[in-house]
């Protein structure tokens, strides 16, 4: 049986925390660039130019892209033929602890939603585990800022609401978010499953390359139509009017119950961060 040490996991997670907060993935960076070239709003284009400069300074001077370096959210797939020497969850949290300290990242986590004392090391992380065939450890980190997280929604739609119901709910969520979610946004959508799975799917959707459509033709079509409708709202970068309100709409789906059609909309600002490593 293949074995890996928790020391390797700790070091890997530390590096991933830092990398995710200093550099955007090339699909995100490319989308911001082409948005600047096609944006019709004057102030909007100026703001997109600032975002481009911001990315450059962040990478060169190692200043986080955004001061909200997020809550550390992980999707971890553990191969069932892999043996981990030690406590995996503790190793991931130790990696977060070191990454947020050594990378000069903000500690944005409080210990209790009501008592609200800062844990001072950005732990605990939020970890979604999956058991998969094989002997690999697949770690994906997506540090999530809460300006956009606070504008996210779950709708328990009825089957009769259909595609039109999905569309109007997603559009409503984007309108309500307006300038608060730091547009241009990426809209992560989860449809199906149950109450909590729809939200997890929406978060996972944000981590997909924004240039890749869903493999399901009817969902790819829905992504395309929603993106077009969202960008005709006129909200624009910063909410100051413009043609770039969203850079992408990514949808993930799952089977669901005969009586329901759960829909989750996870808003993400233009600092849509994610890094994946396979050990």
């Amino acid at each position, binding site marked *: 049986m293949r074995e890996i040490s928790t020391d390797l996991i700790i070091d890997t997670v530390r590096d991933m925390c830092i990398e995710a907060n200093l550099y955007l993935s090339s699909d995100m960076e490319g989308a911001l660039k082409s948005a600047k070239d096609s944006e*019709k*709003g004057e*102030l*909007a284009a100026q*703001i997109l130019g*600032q*975002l481009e*400069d*911001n*990315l450059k*300074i*962040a990478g060169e*001077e*190692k*200043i*986080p*892209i*955004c*001061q*909200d*370096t997020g809550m550390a959210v992980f999707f971890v797939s553990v191969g069932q033929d892999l043996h981990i020497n030690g406590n995996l969850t503790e190793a991931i949290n130790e990696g977060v602890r070191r990454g947020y300290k050594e990378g*000069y*990242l*903000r*500690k*944005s986590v409080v210990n209790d939603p009501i008592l*609200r004392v*800062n844990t*001072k090391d950005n732990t605990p992380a939020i970890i979604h585990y999956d058991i998969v065939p094989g002997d690999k450890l697949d770690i994906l980190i997506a540090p999530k800022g809460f*300006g956009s997280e*606070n504008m996210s929604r779950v709708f328990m739609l009825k089957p009769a609401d259909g595609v039109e119901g999905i569309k109007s709910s997603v559009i409503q969520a984007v309108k309500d978010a*307006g*300038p*608060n979610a*730091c547009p241009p946004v990426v809209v992560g959508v989860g449809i199906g499953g149950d109450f909590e799975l729809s939200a997890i799917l929406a978060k996972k959707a944000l981590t997909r390359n924004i240039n890749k459509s869903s493999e399901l033709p009817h969902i790819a079509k829905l992504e395309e139509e929603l993106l077009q409708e969202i960008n*005709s*709202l*006129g*909200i*624009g970068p*910063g*909410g*100051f*009017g*413009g*043609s770039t309100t969203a850079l992408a709409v990514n949808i993930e789906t799952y089977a669901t119950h005969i009586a329901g059609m759960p829909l989750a909309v996870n808003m993400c*600002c*233009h*600092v849509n961060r994610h890094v994946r490593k396979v050990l």
Partner: protein
Amino acid sequence: MDKYINTPVTKDKLKDLKSGDYVYITGTIYTARDAAHKRMYETLLSGKEIPIDLKDNVIYYLGPTPAREGQVIGSAGPTTSSRMDKYAPLLLDKGLNGMIGKGKRSKEVINSIVKNKAVYFAAVGGAGALLSKCIKESEVIAYDDLGTEAIRKLKVENFPVIVVIDSKGNNLYETAVEDYLKKFKS
């Protein structure tokens, strides 16, 4: 229109700023976000003094990342203002003249801005690395126990903001989207 102001700033000067103006701020501003606002609000309600003099001053809704060796401050962009809506009217009544954040404000805050002849500015959200370059000095002056949420006194130079709600209550978030749609969608 591009404008330049020095802070602290009087209500008289703020009259000249119009919703949609691009303003460069030079001078002293203070940072405070959720936890510092809650504490200032409760302190004021109990009749005690808060650690900063609000009169003519500007508060920036910011919780920065830690500074690396040789840097003044870390990433320093605005946080969402609506979470401060509960506390803002009292601070405005006590002499606060400007707020820098991002996103919509409540009706109560807008009314209080008009009543007190104050201004609400937005900085570009998610541009914390860029904005940090306009901050020349940073010092924690109160509520140190709150970590990133402590109150900091900042010296800024040509810090770029946009007037969202001016002292007359004009709101760029409403007018800009309407104007854009009128211009490009007709």
